[in-house]
């Protein structure tokens, strides 16, 4: 009997494995293959200007040395962290606050919720153009209004101090609805009993949020933050349209830096090394956040 069961078990495992092969093959072709090619390319000085450079593995870590010890890459990483911290922080605060405000069943609130989702569904390039108009003093209605009051603010996107916050503001406008939507969904799934119990116990609004609602929405919030963090590292259209990485280098975040190195200067191997480092960084951050955010309502 035992031998029969073992044979059946082996047979079942083989069937599962065979069944998985098509999916694994697709995964290998679509995801793992290009990713491996990226890593292999990062070990070469590949540039389209020098034929054969894609097969030159004589100094496999030269691109990584260049990235880690020349300053420009470090600078872009710090800018990236700054931009990500501001955008994800603002989007989380704004998203949670609005989700709490809109968490009711009235038709008016429903319409309002839909209105808040508009920025998120606009194509990124449209968002960039909207903010380009808003930030350009000659054509901006905001500047026209401020000028009418006798104020003459400088252009934010050409200021070394304000260019990065200006990008962060536009990015926040575009993406806070995502956090709001995730949190709102979690809030609407929340049972009423814990809230009623807290109310009977005399909890204040803040205590209800901190001790009851927040623990409940924590898993959803973690996922939202994680998604936004990964997306913030991919920031591109806003920077391309609004500042082109400038003034100077003050908005040349890692993604944009990789773009310039790869497509303006044709350093494809170096661009691949930066992309590999970015993937590793995002992977590490994701693990960290997932670990920090794990637990949720059970821990409360």
């Amino acid at each position, binding site marked *: 009997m035992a031998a029969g069961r073992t044979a059946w078990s082996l047979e079942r495992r083989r069937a599962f494995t065979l069944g998985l092969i098509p999916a694994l093959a697709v995964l290998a072709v679509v995801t793992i293959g290009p990713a491996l090619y990226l890593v292999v390319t990062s070990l070469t000085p590949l540039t389209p200007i020098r034929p054969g450079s894609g097969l030159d593995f004589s100094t496999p870590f030269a691109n990584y040395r260049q990235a880690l010890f020349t300053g420009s890459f470090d600078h872009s990483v710090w800018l990236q962290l700054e931009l990500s911290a501001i955008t994800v922080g603002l989007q989380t605060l704004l998203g949670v606050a609005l989700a709490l405000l809109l968490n009711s069943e009235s038709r008016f609130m429903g319409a309002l919720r839909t209105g808040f989702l508009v920025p998120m569904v606009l194509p990124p390039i449209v968002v960039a153009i909207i903010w380009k108009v808003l930030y350009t003093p000659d054509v901006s209605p905001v500047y026209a209004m401020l000028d009418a009051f006798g104020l003459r603010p400088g252009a934010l996107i*050409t200021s070394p101090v304000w260019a990065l916050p200006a990008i962060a503001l536009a990015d926040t406008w575009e993406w806070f609805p995502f956090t709001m939507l995730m949190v709102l969904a979690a809030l609407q799934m929340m049972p009423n009993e814990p809230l009623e119990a807290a109310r009977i116990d005399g909890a204040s609004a803040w205590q209800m949020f901190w001790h009851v609602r927040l623990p409940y929405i924590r898993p959803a919030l973690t996922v939202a933050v994680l998604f936004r963090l990964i997306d913030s590292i991919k920031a591109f259209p806003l920077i391309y349209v609004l500042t082109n990485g400038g003034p100077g280098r003050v908005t040349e975040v890692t993604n944009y830096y990789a773009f310039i190195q790869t497509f303006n200067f044709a*350093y494809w191997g170096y661009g691949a090394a930066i992309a590999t480092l970015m993937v590793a960084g995002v992977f590490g951050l994701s693990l960290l956040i997932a670990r920090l955010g794990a637990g949720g309502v059970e821990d409360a």
Partner: protein
Amino acid sequence: MGSTIGRRQVLAAGTAAGGLLALSGKAPAAGGTKPLKGVTLNISCWSAPYPLLLAKYIPEFEAETGARVIYTTPSFPIYNQRMGLALATRSDAYDVVNVTFIFIGQWIGAGWVLPLDSFIANPKLTPADWNAADFFPGTTTAFRNAAGQLCAIPWIADVMMGGAARYDLISKAGFAMPDNFSEMPKMLAAVNGKDGVPGFLTENHYGWTFPGYLQGFGANIFRNPPHDLMPVLDTPAAVEAAGFFSDLLRKFGPRGALSYTYDEVVAALKSGTVNYATENEAFVTQMAQPGSKVMRTCGFSLFPAGPAGRFPQVATHGWGIPAGSRNKDAAWQFITWAMSRKLLLRMFREHGWSSVTRRSIVELPEFRSKLTLNGFDVAKMYLDTVDLAAKGYMAYRTVPPYPEVDRQIDIAIQGIVSGEKTAQQAMAAAQRNSIVQLRRAGVKL
């Protein structure tokens, strides 16, 4: 198997070959023959006045030849990125492309566009009266490869000059168009803010708009291009030039002056929301065309001279055939049509296109008289500038690693104008970073 030729390609090639013979007069006359019927040409150029104007005439080429033309004109940076990738991968996506001046060293040096000499010399492919020698030598020289073969036909001599949207304000303040650097700040200080119009603006591609000032102060990008590519961006003259140029933008520019691209500068000039700019002739002369709000008030001059002389920047862009094109003969047919004297003359007569590269057109009396705008002899300025560039001071621009240095200049000027750095700091950083970039590109310094 990979190179199997399909039935359609055979038919298309046969039709194209027959058509070329017909066009050159070697085929029997056939009423209504469409020599390029069945051929689709993918053509691209960056968005500039000439390629946009050419779009109006392309239906005539299609009707005449039967070819179908897919024509795109993205913005300058998008075009260059897209084309750099397509050419590098020997893609067959394009049949005729613009060879961008700043990338001549890379694109022609790497053999990504074809030499055209054999096309020009072939009487079956090129009409006898097409006359390649008519193009300004100053523009064709830039497109020659190491073997001396011509790899693109120049469609523009992009000469930099001075243009004022509100010359009325300048003359009212008692000034003429500034002829040198010392007159510029005086004139700009007098007119800045008059009628609410800021005094000065130039496009934010400073690797293009700044070198005329740099050289005017006696400095340069490289020590002795193309032979000695050691950057010399931190010399006292270079720092002085950077400070002077940045001051013009900072003191007399509109808010957000650093964000203006070339098309935004043109729009600002044409609408009279900025007064004076040093920009390309093809851009500033648009102020005098119908539809411009400053048509009656604009003025023009040569690019101002500095203490070391006058160095108006001259660029050229040209039509080339990518090595990967599958329709090379038809592509050449398009180029000969687009750059024919007949069509260029029509573009000039019908739409005022003036940055012409054929000497026989520029020297026509009607060209000279039509290009006298509000009393300014722009045709003479154009010819004088092209002649000045023949001295060879533009040699820095076509060396293969120039795009990297161009970016360092952009960053330096932005840093100074925004107040992030002093001219000394910004140019020292540009020098350091340029050396790093050039060494990376394999240049021995």
